[in-house]
């Protein structure tokens, strides 16, 4: 009896990535999935916003009003966040951090529009983590000599005894993996829980899951966006140092 209930309810639960169509790309099978569609919607929203902001800022007035106010507020807040963490290195990195912040934020809260959040797909968060990894090590090789890096990697032990080097290397490789998995698992857990609530409760879940959407999509999404950008900035400014 309980078995039948579980089975019938389990068919309604749907939070996986689905393929929409596939095509051959140099002999490989490539799928266009629901993640691509969600990312397309997010990009359309962001591009529309960017075009509107560009048109507004072309004829910007001394005393801002309406939409110009909103754009200036967003830019000022993002700049303030980057400057508060990175100090003197901020002007070089605020474009990248601002872009990533807005993209991840809109991806996370796109669950409110009925889309499957793109960041609930590991194929989206891993490249973000790898970008951070590349930025960290670009800054490292730009501002430190090879000898300094070697001494730093063998740090608690003297540099002629590179036993600790392996541990440091694993620690460095763990950075992008933990960054991307943190974002992915947070958003995925929100998506799965919302799908379970909608799927298992059926018509009982009519109005009150809105409160859960506020937590899982808005609150959790905003916090994880902030954490991702904050950690990226901290790692990079560790390498940039006082230069």
């Amino acid at each position, binding site marked *: 009896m309980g078995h039948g209930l579980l089975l019938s309810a389990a068919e309604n639960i749907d939070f996986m990535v689905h393929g929409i169509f596939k095509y051959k790309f140099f002999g490989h099978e490539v799928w266009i999935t629901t993640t691509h569609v969600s990312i397309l919607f997010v990009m359309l929203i962001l591009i529309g916003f960017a075009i509107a902001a560009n048109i507004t800022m072309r004829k910007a007035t001394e005393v801002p009003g309406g939409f110009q106010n909103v754009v200036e507020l967003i830019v000022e807040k993002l700049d303030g966040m980057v400057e508060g963490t990175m100090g003197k290195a901020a002007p070089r990195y605020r474009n990248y951090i601002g872009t990533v912040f807005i993209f991840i934020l809109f991806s996370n809260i796109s669950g409110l529009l009925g889309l499957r959040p793109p960041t609930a797909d590991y194929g989206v968060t891993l490249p973000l983590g790898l970008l951070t990894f590349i930025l960290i090590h670009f800054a490292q090789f730009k501002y430190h000599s090879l000898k300094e890096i070697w001494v730093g990697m063998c740090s608690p032990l003297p540099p002629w005894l590179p036993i600790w080097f392996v541990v440091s290397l694993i620690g460095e490789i763990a950075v992008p993996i933990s960054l991307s998995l*943190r974002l992915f*698992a947070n958003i*995925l*857990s929100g998506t799965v829980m919302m799908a379970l609530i909608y799927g298992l409760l059926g018509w009982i879940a009519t109005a009150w899951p809105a409160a859960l959407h506020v937590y899982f999509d808005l609150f959790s999404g905003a*916090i994880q966006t*902030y*954490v991702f950008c904050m950690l990226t900035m901290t790692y990079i400014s560790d390498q940039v140092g006082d230069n």
Partner: protein
Amino acid sequence: MEFNTNFILGCSAIGAGLAVIAGIGPGIGQGNAAGQAAAAVGRNPGAKGDIMSTMLLGQAVAETTGLYGLLIAMLLLFVKPLLP
């Protein structure tokens, strides 16, 4: 050797349940961080904004270990890697 699908699925469910026990650690850690932050706000109410952002950042980092357990549980339940 004969594989019994139901047996494997049941063991996967038990494993998933055991994996999410990992949530205990982040629970304790986040509660500790929130308590310390509350004490800090009590001592210095002017620094509430800084304390809040530092607390949220630390809590989100502490949450990672629990999320790894959750990921393992989801892999066991929905991807079913143990089925032949």
